[in-house]
């Protein structure tokens, strides 16, 4: 009897958080899976059961696969562009640069602003007539390179990726700066005495010592890129002609623009499953490595 009252009084501490969490976060997950079996506009009481019809349609939907490939392109480009530049910046702000604290603070400004504000700012950078980029190019005599960056299907995805990298590089810079501060100075001094040049000690000592941080940053970049939505939504709406479509923008448009809630749910469940799969794989690899090392 005493045990039960102990349980209840402890459980009461958890209850409020648990109720809100179940209601808005956990229960919606199976609900989405359920909706994905129907043809439904979200409002009318008439839900037409399709079985796996939406799923079959999804696997035959070229626009969906385009958005999937774009997501993968985004992941790879993010890792390849963001991490090296972030490491370079981390080296800059960790060096004996005067005012390095101030540099770090100022570099971080884009990271804490909203994706909406960043997306709109980049719209003004890419705008064809008065945009910052085109006026810079014509200012230095490269008029032939000016173009409508976001309007060109071949360039739109790349242009959006540049904006994403610009916003997220300072984030990885901070991670690398913290890791660099953890490398003991004696190691570098010893390498220096042994005659290693700065470049040599960077590639032979710093990079190997940072390998765990680099892996963690890649994982963050990987899982984060499946969630990118607002910046792309504000900049291109996934256009032109789905050139910069991502799974998240496609899901939003299916559900809330054309009100195909069933099909939108199917895309949402797919995003969920992919994230889940990636997380499991990453955790597995991490555990295997921990076992191998331990």
């Amino acid at each position: 009897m005493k045990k039960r009252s102990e349980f209840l009084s402890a459980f009461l501490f958890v209850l409020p958080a648990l109720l809100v969490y179940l209601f808005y976060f956990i229960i919606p997950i199976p609900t989405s899976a359920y909706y994905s079996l129907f043809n439904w506009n979200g409002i009318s009481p008439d839900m037409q059961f399709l079985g796996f019809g939406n799923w079959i349609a999804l696997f035959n939907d070229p626009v969906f696969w385009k958005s999937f490939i774009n997501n993968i392109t985004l992941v790879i480009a993010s890792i390849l562009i963001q991490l090296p530049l972030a490491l370079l910046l981390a080296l800059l702000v960790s060096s004996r640069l005067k005012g390095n604290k101030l540099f770090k603070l100022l570099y971080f400004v884009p990271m804490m602003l909203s994706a909406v504000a960043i997306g709109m700012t980049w719209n003004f950078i890419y705008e064809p007539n008065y945009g910052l980029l085109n006026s810079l190019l014509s200012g230095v005599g490269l008029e032939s390179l000016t173009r409508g960056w976001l309007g060109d299907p071949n360039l739109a995805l790349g242009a959006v990726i540049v904006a994403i990298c610009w916003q997220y590089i300072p984030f990885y810079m901070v991670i690398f700066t913290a890791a660099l501060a953890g490398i003991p100075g004696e190691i570098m001094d010893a390498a220096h005495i042994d005659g290693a040049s700065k470049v040599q000690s960077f590639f032979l000592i710093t990079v190997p010592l940072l390998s765990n941080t680099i892996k963690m940053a890649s994982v963050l970049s990987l899982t984060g890129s499946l969630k990118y939505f607002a910046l792309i939504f504000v900049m291109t709406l996934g256009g032109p002609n789905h050139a910069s479509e991502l799974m998240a923008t496609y899901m939003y448009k299916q559900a809330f623009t054309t009100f195909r809630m069933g099909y939108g749910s199917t895309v949402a469940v797919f995003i969920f499953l992919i994230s889940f799969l990636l997380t499991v794989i990453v955790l597995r690899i991490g555990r295997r490595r921990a076992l191998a090392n331990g």
Partner: protein
Amino acid sequence: MASTHFRSRISITRLAVYILAILWLLIALYPFVFLVQNSLKRLMEFFTGNVWKLPEVFSLVNYIEVWTSNFPRFLFNSAFVVSISLALLLLAGSSAAYGLSRLKFRFSRVFYYLFVGGMTIPVHITLIPVYIITRRIGLYDSLWALIGPYIAFNMPITVFILVSFMGGIPKSLEEAAYIDGSTKWQNFWHIVLPISRPAMTAVGIYNSVILWNDFIFPLVLISARTKRPLTLALWNFQGEFGSDVPTIMAALILSMIPLLIFYAVTRERLIEGLVAGAIKG
């Protein structure tokens, strides 16, 4: 001879470091300078003149136009939603973290993993059900519609950080109080919560930025103009002001000011909070 050679190499590296550091400073911040300098121009000057030039007459007319287009209302909406969500999130989150970390009861591990598992789940899976539920319970198009989802979505990281902090507080502190007849609630409120202030501050800073910047929930749950939080209002300014580019730029700058002030106050703590929150999440 060798030493002068060495010194000149050092100063070349130092020069390169400064050049790179200033180059990135321009890349990171010039876009904002561009916005400020053009937001101060009148429409005619903007379209006929050179975007690199400073305004001939510094005019605040665009800022006044934004301010009188309900801007204070949007600011209030954001502040209202963020402060209520944050207060409830911290209250429910810290109490749950106390229960999970300091009162070992049946299934407490299960609940802990249920919360923490949410950190890896993308928000999109819940959007449609949340939209439908919000309509059914009659909260659609109200600021209150945002508060439930905001509490729920930031609960995992909040619980995770607070549990790991509270787990490290020595048991003996509470045991003495129990002997003096204090209840669990009193221990939580008077002993554990005050000690947890550093963790609460970190979680609070992280969540305020994340909530303030959120766009997807207002996009899905709010439609009336007067109910918009700042991010949604800003996005809609693009359509409302159409080709009045300097005014949109003024809106952008105005929308950034609250966060920049917050950043100026919190500085490194904001950076650390954002990075720690993301790494753990």
